[in-house]
C-alpha cells in the first residue's frame, strides 16, 4: 500500500500559475480552508477557480479572489459575497455562472470521462445564448461540456492512508465530484486512520481517485460556526 499522507508543500509541488483549480465546499462546510491558505501562501496567480460559491468576504476562496489571484471564477451563486460581486461588476474578475446542479453535473462528467451532458435546464431562458443546442427525441437540449481541473482541493472528515475519504453531513456537497475531476487531487482530512479502518461500504471517495492526503493538525477558526448564520 502506498501511503498517500504527505506534507502540503509536497502535495502542491506540481501546481503552477495559471492553472484551473476546483475547490470543494458549499459555504463553510466542506471548504478546504487549510489548502486554500496554502495556495495563498505559495503565491499562485492567474488561477481559474471552480467553486459552488466564493465563500463570504474575507473567508476561504474569497481571500484568493480579493488578493487578485483569480482571473476567472466558474460558479453558481455569489449571493453571500458582495465583495466578489463588486469585483465582477468592476470587471476585476470574469465570472461564469451555471445552474447549481448543472455545475455539479459538468464537474461530475469531467470526472467520469464524458465529453459533456445534455440538459433542458434553462433551455427557454437567456442561458441558451451562445450554447450548442441539439435535438433529441425527448426535446431540445443544451450541450454542456464536461469540466475538469488541473487540481482539485477537497475537505474530508476522515481519510485513511490509502486516500479513501468520508465526508460529514452537508460538508459532502461538491467534494466527491471534484475528487474525481482533476489531474491532481489533494484532500485535507480532519482525522487520518489506518488502512482498513473505514468500512468499504461507507467510503464516499475511493482512494484510487486521490493523489495526496493532508492531515489538518488543528482546525483553523474558519472551520467553525459563522455566528451570523445562527438563527
Amino acid at each position: 500500500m502506498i501511503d498517500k499522507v504527505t506534507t502540503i508543500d509536497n502535495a502542491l509541488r506540481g501546481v503552477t500559475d495559471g492553472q484551473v483549480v476546483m475547490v470543494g465546499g458549499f459555504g463553510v462546510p466542506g471548504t478546504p480552508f487549510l489548502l486554500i491558505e496554502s495556495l495563498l501562501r505559495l503565491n499562485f496567480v492567474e488561477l481559474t477557480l471552480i467553486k459552488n460559491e466564493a465563500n463570504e468576504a474575507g473567508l476561504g476562496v474569497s481571500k484568493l479572489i480579493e488578493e487578485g489571484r483569480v482571473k476567472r471564477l466558474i460558479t453558481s451563486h455569489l449571493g453571500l459575497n458582495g465583495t466578489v460581486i463588486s469585483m465582477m461588476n468592476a470587471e476585476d474578475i470574469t465570472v461564469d455562472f451555471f445552474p447549481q446542479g448543472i455545475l455539479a453535473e459538468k464537474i461530475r462528467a469531467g470526472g467520469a470521462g464524458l465529453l459533456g451532458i445534455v440538459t433542458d435546464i434553462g433551455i427557454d431562458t437567456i442561458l441558451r445564448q451562445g450554447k450548442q443546442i441539439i435535438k433529441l427525441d425527448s426535446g431540445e437540449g443544451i450541450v454542456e461540456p464536461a469540466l475538469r481541473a488541473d487540481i482539485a482541493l477537497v475537505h474530508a472528515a476522515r481519510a485513511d492512508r490509502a486516500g479513501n475519504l468520508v465526508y460529514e453531513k452537508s460538508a459532502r456537497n461538491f467534494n466527491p465530484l471534484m475528487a474525481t475531476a482533476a489531474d491532481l487531487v489533494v484532500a485535507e482530512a480532519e482525522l487520518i486512520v489506518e488502512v482498513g479502518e473505514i468500512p468499504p461500504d461507507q467510503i464516499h471517495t475511493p482512494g484510487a481517485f486521490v493523489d495526496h492526503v493532508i492531515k489538518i493538525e488543528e482546525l483553523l477558526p474558519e472551520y467553525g460556526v459563522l455566528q451570523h448564520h445562527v438563527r
Partner: protein
Amino acid sequence: MCVDPKEKIACRAAKEISSGQVINLGIGIPTLIPTFLSSDISVTFHSENGIIGAGGFSRSGEADRNLIDAGGTYISTVPGAAFCDSSLSFALIRGGRLDLSFLGALELSEKGDLANWIIPGKFAPGIGGAMELAQKARRLVITTTHTTSKGAPKILRSCKLPLTAPNCVDLIITELAVIRVSSAGLVLEEIALETDLESVVRLTDAPLSVSDNLSTF
C-alpha cells in the same frame, strides 16, 4: 394569528403541503413555512446542498459546523434524514422526485412565467438552484409580496426581466391574494381579509378571473 405580511404568506403557504411530500423551501419567506405546519403533517424537507430530511434551525450553541441549509443557516435533521452529494441532490429535483417547491419572485406573468434570478446591470448574484427548482419541481408555489418595495405590481402580463423558467408556476401566494395559474390565465382563488377585490385588481398588472368559489384567508 398571521399579521406580519410575510408570516401571513407563509401561514397560507403551509396549507399547500400534504403528508408524504418531498419539499424544497427557497430562501426568504419559504423558510418561515415550517413554523405554520400542522403537527399531523409529515413531510421531507430537501435542501439542495445535499440534505434530504432537513429539520428546524439550530439554536445558538447547538449549531453544527458541518450542517447548514442552502441559504447558509445552521439547521438540524430529522430521523430518517440522508446526506448526499450535490449531483444526487439535484438529481432528486430534476429527476422528478421533488413534489413541491416554494420560491420567491421578482416578476410573474399570467402564463406562469417566473423571473427571480437577475436584474441585468443591478442584481446578478448567479443562478443557484432556482432554475432547476422552478423548471422541475412537480408543483411550484410562489410566495412573494404582491408588489415591489416601491409598490409596483410583480404580477404582469409578461415578465420584463430574464426568466428563471417560463410557464412553471402553479400557484401564487401573496399577502393579498392566492392566485392559481390556469391554462386560461390567472384565477383569483382567495383574497386576504385585509384587502378588497378592487385593490387586488389594481395591484395586479395582468387579467384576473375571479373564482366562483372565491374565499378569504
